[in-house]
């Protein structure tokens, strides 16, 4: 398996380089270069996956490190780690990436920067594979920032739009806030253990290299990176804005893979977290889940609904890790990648159709992403509708779909956690509440988009199904959201038991003094909580769906009226709890003001008055010394006095100068004679 690893990095990177430098000159603008590269990695990933299935060994692991550089005593090693988690992640990334590449051929067809787009996608694939393959914090951090870069480039891909430019900058900066925390965490671990390798850090921590409180802090610092990348509260603000990027990008980066990197990191680092740290993580995840779900309910932009839904689902995964059900978290990551990518690509298909319809009608003002402009598209876009419906079922947690299994496992985990620690009763409430809202807003989305009457009939008349390059990925991804894919060789729609749970097993915490429950204890607890969790989640999901049916399909209640009655919650939700505004007012503007003040102080006050003050003082002093003292007193009185006396004597001796050399010579000789005389004496 090790021999495959380099290709996951080299191929996409080479594709990126080729696209950037030669893309425009290649036939078909070089899209086949990127597709070939990603397709090859997909084949390799499938090969690795098959090998994994044949091996069927939960602890399978291959690791290889090499020295990046050394400074004498300090040797910085980086390397590659491949285990079952890696293989599954590689497959997820390669698969989604490959499908998105294919989809983009249709979606981005007429874009002037078509080749650059594929280059960026390849760069992203490269960096994401790097994160997955790393066996150390340093290179994870590096690739971590590189995915941030590719995300920046892709969000701002249509940079002529100010909103896109702003969103890309925001994404990068917000991510950097988290990255700083992560970097501090890395420094803490490195200082304590002297290595960046997971294995060394785990060993070091197990040996007690960090005292417990510091270990909590260090773990939370690392988690800060995940907060940024996985858009957890309070750093979630960038993800909805990131929808300014092309929709396939949203599917790949901002739904399926990159945002999951934070979850992946937390998952990998799980053994390092102390119970306190895990509690914080669980709450961050829980709050994110419910918070984003509330916002999603009132959004009208189809992509924003999905974006907040992503945030919410990521919150689920993080909460799962925090409560110890981290295998469930990872399971959800995998299933979510498939159906959320499907949802985004479907929405992309819808937007694409809307966009073309508006284009045909010559309407450039209407927003093709606004759900209020849609409706009744079921009949026109059959494939899109069906695939989207399947993915929605999966996301809502309806049985026989993959989402049901993974979500159920998470909810079981939180329930089990709460039964052991009753003071954390809020966590399952967050979980079930978010599940209810998820089912509701997803069906709201479906009903608003595909059912009912359109806002304008002529728009609907011009809607056409998307081309095959776009629908094929939809079908593949929708198929992957059926439960059976994940439970083979067992077929029980109500249990997640299958190859996945067999191959991905929990590892014990390395936190010393055994303050954490062991993996076995956690698994046991989850198993017990399984049935009640399943029942509750089923009830909750169907309640949500029913509500959506009542309000948006049957129109028994008017949504507007409901909003009016619940004015305050509606406003909070609609305006995303004013988080952006708060950041603007209390963080960003003060920083800029501070910067302006510092800049002003530095240049206009410190430099002009203080530093130049030295010059001015020196000038004054020199004027005093140079003019008053030097000229008036020293020069005029003393020095000129010497001059005047010299002049007096000079006048007296003037006769010596005759102009005749021979006279001078006589004087010279006179001098010599005097020397003779002195010598003789």
């Amino acid at each position, binding site marked *: 398996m090790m021999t495959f690893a380099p290709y996951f990095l080299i191929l996409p990177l080479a594709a990126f380089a080729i696209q950037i430098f030669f893309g425009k000159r290649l036939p078909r603008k070089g899209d086949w270069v990127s597709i070939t590269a990603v397709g090859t990695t997909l084949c390799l990933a499938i090969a690795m996956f098959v090998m994994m299935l044949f091996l069927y060994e939960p602890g399978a692991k291959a690791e290889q490190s090499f020295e990046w550089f050394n400074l004498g005593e*300090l040797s910085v090693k980086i390397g590659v780690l491949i285990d079952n988690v890696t293989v599954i992640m590689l497959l997820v990334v390669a698969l989604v990436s490959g499908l998105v590449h294919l989809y983009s051929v249709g979606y981005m067809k007429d874009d002037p920067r078509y080749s650059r787009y594929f280059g960026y996608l390849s760069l992203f694939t490269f960096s994401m594979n790097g994160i997955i393959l790393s066996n150390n914090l340093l290179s994870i951090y590096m690739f971590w*920032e590189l995915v941030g870069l590719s995300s920046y480039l892709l969000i701002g891909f249509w*940079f*002529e739009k100010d909103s896109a430019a702003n969103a890309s900058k925001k994404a*990068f900066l917000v991510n950097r806030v988290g990255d700083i925390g992560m970097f501090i965490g890395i420094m803490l671990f*490195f200082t304590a253990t002297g290595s960046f390798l997971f294995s060394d850090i785990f060993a070091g921590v197990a040996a007690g290299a960090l005292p417990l409180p510091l270990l909590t802090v260090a773990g939370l610092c690392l988690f800060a990176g995940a907060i940024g990348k996985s858009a957890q509260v309070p750093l979630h603000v960038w993800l909805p804005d990131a929808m300014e990027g092309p929709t396939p990008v949203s599917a790949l980066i901002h739904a399926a893979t990159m945002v999951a990197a934070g979850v992946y990191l937390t998952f990998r680092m799980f053994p390092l977290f102390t119970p306190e740290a895990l509690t914080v993580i669980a709450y961050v995840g829980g709050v994110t889940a419910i918070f984003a779900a509330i916002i999603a309910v009132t959004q009208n932009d189809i992509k924003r609904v999905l974006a907040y839904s992503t945030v919410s689902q990521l919150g689920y995964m993080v909460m799962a890790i925090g409560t110890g059900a981290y295998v469930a978290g990872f399971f959800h990551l995998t299933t979510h990648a498939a159906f959320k990518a499907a949802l985004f690509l479907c929405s992309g298909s819808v937007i694409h159709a809307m966009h073309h319809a508006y284009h045909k009608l010559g309407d450039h003002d209407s927003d093709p992403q606004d759900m209020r402009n849609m409706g009744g598209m079921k009949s026109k876009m059959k494939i899109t509708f069906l695939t989207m419906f399947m993915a929605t079922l999966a996301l809502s947690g309806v049985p026989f779909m993959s989402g049901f299994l993974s979500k159920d496992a998470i909810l079981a985990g939180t329930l089990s956690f709460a039964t052991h620690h009753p003071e954390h009763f809020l966590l399952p409430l967050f979980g079930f509440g978010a599940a209810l809202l998820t089912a509701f807003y997803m069906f709201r989305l479906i009903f608003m988009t595909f059912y009912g009457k359109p806002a304008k009939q002529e728009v609907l008349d011009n809607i056409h199904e998307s081309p095959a390059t776009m629908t094929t990925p939809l079908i593949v991804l929708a198929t992957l959201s059926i439960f059976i894919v994940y439970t083979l060789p067992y077929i029980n729609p109500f249990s997640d038991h299958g190859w996945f749970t067999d191959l991905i097993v929990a590892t014990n915490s390395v936190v010393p003094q055994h303050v954490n429950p062991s993996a076995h204890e956690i698994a046991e607890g989850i198993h017990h909580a399984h049935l009640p969790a399943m029942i509750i989640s089923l009830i909750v999901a169907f309640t949500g769906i029913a509500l959506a049916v009542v309000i948006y399909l049957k129109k028994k209640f008017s949504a507007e009226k409901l909003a009016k009655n619940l004015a305050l919650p509606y406003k909070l939700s609609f305006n995303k709890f004013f988080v952006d505004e708060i950041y603007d007012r209390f963080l960003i503007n003060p920083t800029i003001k501070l910067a302006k003040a510092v800049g002003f102080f530095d240049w206009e006050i410190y430099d002009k008055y203080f530093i130049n003050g030295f010059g001015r003082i020196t000038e004054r002093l020199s004027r005093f010394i140079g003019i008053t003292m030097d000229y008036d007193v020293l020069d005029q009185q003393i020095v000129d006095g010497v001059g005047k006396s010299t002049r007096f004597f000079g006048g007296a001796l003037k006769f010596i100068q005759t102009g005749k050399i021979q006279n001078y010579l006589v004087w010279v000789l006179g001098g010599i004679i005097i020397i003779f005389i002195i010598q003789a004496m």
Partner: protein
Amino acid sequence: MDWNILSWLVWLPVIGAGLIVLVPRDKGDTMKWIAAAATAFQLIFAVLLWSQFDSSHVGFQFQEKMSWIASFNIQYYLGVDGLSLPMVLLTALLSFLCVFVSWKIDKAPKGYFALFLLLDAGMMGVFLSLDFFLFYVFWEVMLLPMYFLIGMWGGPQREYAAIKFFLYTLAGSVLMLVAILALYFTCGHTFDMTVLMAQANDGLGSMTWWGFNALKVVWIMLFIAFAIKVPVFPFHTWLPLAHVEAPTAVSVILAGVLLKMGTYGMLRISYPMLPDGAIWFAGALALLALINIIWGALCALAQTDLKKMVAYSSVSHMGYVLLGMAAVVAAGAKNGGNVLAAEAGMNGAVLQMFNHGTITAMLFILVGVIYDRAHHRNIDGFGGLGARMPIYTGVVALAFFAGLGLPGLSGFISEAMCFIGAFPVFKTIVIISTLGILLNAAYFLWAFQRMFLGKLNEKYVDLPEINKRELFTLIPLAVLVILLGIYPAPVLDVMKVTMGHLIQIIQQSSLLAAF
């Protein structure tokens, strides 16, 4: 070693300058080609030097020693070690590229290129001399051409900028001269750095002047002298002005090489000669580093002049170097003899010097490119250039991302090493200064957005794309930035033995027990 390669490195530009003086006034192109040839040979020699350098060897190599002014025991003493070698290569490379950057100089090219080569010789001399007096001479030799280059070929405020730069740095030089004399008279009447390194610490440490420890007095004097060049926080205001007013190539040299002389001086002179002082001052140094990082970044964020922003970013980036240098105390007994951290910090500092040299050179060249076209540098006065000049935008993006420390580009690894090195000792300071990373990203991205993203400013629909000559000056730097970002080992291998030795010197310092 047989053919005095170091002397060639120093004197080649002087020969070039002499030739340029002989060229008739109206043959501007000939002068440019002479300058290009002189710097090209210098670069070749520098690369040769690099290839023949034995990186496992402790101490100075390729030494050349001759009595110069025998009555004061002043020597013409050149040598190179792992600390100076990267700087030598950087100087040679930037000088060579800067000749092409200044290709369009039409105002009195004879004076310009002759002075430029003289400046080059001075810089090379500073990095190669091992005699303190010779060091001082080269240090001053460098000032004068700089003064004229800024004062005659600069922007609208050039006289003010030039005189300020000159006086400011001269003030520092005076302190250095005093320190040199103090060392000379207390440590065996010699200017030989290798001898001073062995004697100065004990010689000065036992003396008291006006109630202060002589070592601390000398350390402070040297520190201020070097701090002005770096520039360290309260001494930094000459820098934005000089950078903004200087012609592009001179800004490149200023930021790329001259600033490094401050930190180079500290590492070459202050640290090994007065290790006690280094330990005594490390805390303050870290604090100053923090102020530099944050203050510089905040100031950069506030700028609307692109060149000024880049200038302030240099202030911020040099802060990382100081932070890395402060990390050397980690090797002390009180900090558990954490040699790993000290190594990371010190090597990171030198690597950061080198990397900042390449990155900031790129930035200044790029500023020059846009200034040549639009004749202003107001960040808000552009907009949407990304659509009009894709290649230029790409290179700027590379430089900006390198500047904000993106992994995979050279700035990241050196900054990270500086942080990692200083972290065990100065936890709070490092944690606060990591905010600098964020601010760095903020001002670079903000400037990038205002200049290149959004709707194309209609004034600039005809702005020509970057030309081949300008690309030629940028590509070597870009390649270095990427290569060292992926694989920094070649540079680190050259310096690590020297830095390890320096850490050992610090470890053996007598003050260490107290730390």
